[in-house]
């Protein structure tokens, strides 16, 4: 390639030019630009359930604002395609994210007649697709910068804080999702809490039960195939089916034991959801505990025993600390999986943000679906970032 570039012929010049183009950036730019050009930036709906009328970016915003937004998007496209410096890429992509978010809020305000509380202005695909492209540009730039774990967590917290402050400022209040939020504010807080409680509670129970089970599987290899096989089968049962399976025994339990009923254990509701999530959580935790313990250097364990550590000391001081990063990876999988799966719990009255999702689907009110779905995505993403950082911190100096 280099040799062919020496004679200054047109084909080699084009190769040199092509090699300077960032391929991911080019792809994201193409997708994003197509979305901005041909997909509606916002949808204007006469009320919350009728289909919306599409409005492009420059139809939705006053000329100056539309021009400014377009300029920033063009800049981000140029940087994405041509600039290698990850800091600049991140900075410009963040600027563009903020710009399109402000633009969609401004469009909502501009298109909502004063005092009209029925009309809904929803963000359209022409907003969401470029936003996702810009988000991918940001994560790509952050990956290239390889920030330390603590810095990644700080970045996440800054992002969450900025999002909360922006939403609380009232600037976004005319967007249809925020209109849904305004109507459901109290329930939203309760369902958010319920969602977190179900996801974390079933995870906690799974850790308490799964860790000893994993240690047992490691110590008694004969049990391993049986236990892991059973958990594998549970994992293959669809969530809805498992909820259904839970109903009968828990219903019977509630009927037989008044105490259980008073504790809220019934055939439907949070109890079967929590039990089902707990069962789903067991496999990753048990399997990763077994894997983590198996990967602990046998020489280290032999030396520990040979120097006079008791079995408990070997477990707590050598095996578990060395297996912890792998176990935490299992916990990360479970947490992210649970945050998503709690959504389905709403179907059997388990509560959580899924309530909004299924209510929205039932009413064909997409804004209500988004009110449930967006926080779920943010929660799962945050959980993944937090636990990845934790795993990386713990994994240091352990090779």
């Amino acid at each position, binding site marked *: 390639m280099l040799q062919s570039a020496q004679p200054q012929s047109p084909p080699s010049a084009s190769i040199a030019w092509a090699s300077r183009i960032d391929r991911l950036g080019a792809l994201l730019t193409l997708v994003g630009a197509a979305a901005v050009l041909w997909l509606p930036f916002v949808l204007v709906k006469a009320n919350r359930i009728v289909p919306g009328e599409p409005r492009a970016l420059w139809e939705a915003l006053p000329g100056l604002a539309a021009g400014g937004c377009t300029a920033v998007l063009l800049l981000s496209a140029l940087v994405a395609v041509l600039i290698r410096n990850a800091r600049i890429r991140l900075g410009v992509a963040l600027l563009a994210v903020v710009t399109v978010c402000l633009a969609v809020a401004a469009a909502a305000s501009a298109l909502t007649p004063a005092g009209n509380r029925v009309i809904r202005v929803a963000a359209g695909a022409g907003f969401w697709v470029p936003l996702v492209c810009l988000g991918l540009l940001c994560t790509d730039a952050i990956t290239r910068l390889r920030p330390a774990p603590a810095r990644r967590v700080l970045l996440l917290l800054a992002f969450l804080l900025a999002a909360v402050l922006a939403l609380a400022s009232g600037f976004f209040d005319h967007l249809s999702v925020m209109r849904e939020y305004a109507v459901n504010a109290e329930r939203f807080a309760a369902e958010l809490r319920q969602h977190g409680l179900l996801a974390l509670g079933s995870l906690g129970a799974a850790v308490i039960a799964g860790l000893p089970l994993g240690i047992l599987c490691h110590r008694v290899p004969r049990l391993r195939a049986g236990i892991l096989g059973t958990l594998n089968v549970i994992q293959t049962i669809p969530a809805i089916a498992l909820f259904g399976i839970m109903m009968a025994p828990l219903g019977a339990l509630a009927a037989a034991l008044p105490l259980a009923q008073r504790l809220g254990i019934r055939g439907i509701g949070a109890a079967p959801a929590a039990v089902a999530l707990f069962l789903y959580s067991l496999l990753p935790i048990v399997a990763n505990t077994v894997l983590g313990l198996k990967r602990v250097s046998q020489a280290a364990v032999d*030396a520990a*025993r*040979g*120097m006079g*550590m008791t079995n408990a000391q070997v477990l707590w001081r*050598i095996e578990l600390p060395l297996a912890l990063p792998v176990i935490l990876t299992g916990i990360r999988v479970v947490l992210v999986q649970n945050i998503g799966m709690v959504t389905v719990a709403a179907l059997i009255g388990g509560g959580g943000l899924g309530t909004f999702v299924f209510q929205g689907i039932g009413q064909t009110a997409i804004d209500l679906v988004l009110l449930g779905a967006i926080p779920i995505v943010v929660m799962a993403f945050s959980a993944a970032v937090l636990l990845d950082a934790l795993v990386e911190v713990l994994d240091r100096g352990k*090779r």
Partner: protein
Amino acid sequence: MITVENLTKQYGATRAVDDVSMQIPGNSITVIVGTSGSGKSTLLRMINRLIEPSAGRVLIEGKDTRSEPAHLLRRRIGYAIQGHGLFPHRTVEENIATVPRLLRWSAPRVRARVEELLRVFQLDPAQYARAFPHELSGGQQQRVGVARALAAEPAVLLMDEPFGALDPIIRAKAQEDLLNIQRRFGTTVVLVTHDMDEAFHLGDRVAVMSQGRLLQYDRPAVLLTRPADPFVSRMTGLADRAMRLLSLTTAGEVASPGEGGGPRVAASASLREVLSELLWSGAHAALVVEADGTVRGQLSLETILAHGRPR
């Protein structure tokens, strides 16, 4: 002193160790040598009860090892293994302090001991105490492994192929270190290896095992000159047994008075090395000198050759 009495380990139908009895003298190095599967490691691990015997018993200084819980017994016995077995999540300092901390030594005493051992093993405490095992070279890791085994001043040190993973140059250095350490602390060392050269170089006494049985247990020279079993002579090597015999005696031990000519050799050199030197230089005698340069005496080719014959 360690007394092994009729020690047997049965796994199903096979006997990994078959009725072994031996007296291991204190303040010495005893090497157990054998092919893989000979039961040598099993025998070693029964001394600190990492493996419980099926029959027989082990006495250390006359006391049955089963008279106390196994983990307490092991804290009094040093244990070093192939591939060092260092704890990867703990610093060098923490690794070495393992047994002293299990024994609840005071913090200053632990720190002083760690520092002493690091110096003994030529590792600068300022540089290495806080390092993690993966930051050390293979030879350094192995030295930390032995230092850790010696941390609580055990009277007995068990070593299971401790130098097996080292390259030849570092292994030779580690072997010299072990000889020095043994002399310095007066430890009773029991070392398992499959390397006959290592056994002859280190062992005050060598035990040869095969298929779970102890074939012969004696001083290295006796193993060479009066093998009890064809397997022992095969293990010790028929082709170069004369050279092996020469390697067991140092020039200083057999030098005769006088100051003839010839190449100068160290008193600590083995007769094998002196013979090689004489062959190389074409001389008939060598001048034996002490480490400080004073002349110990002279050593003729005839004397060396006489030591290469069984007596």
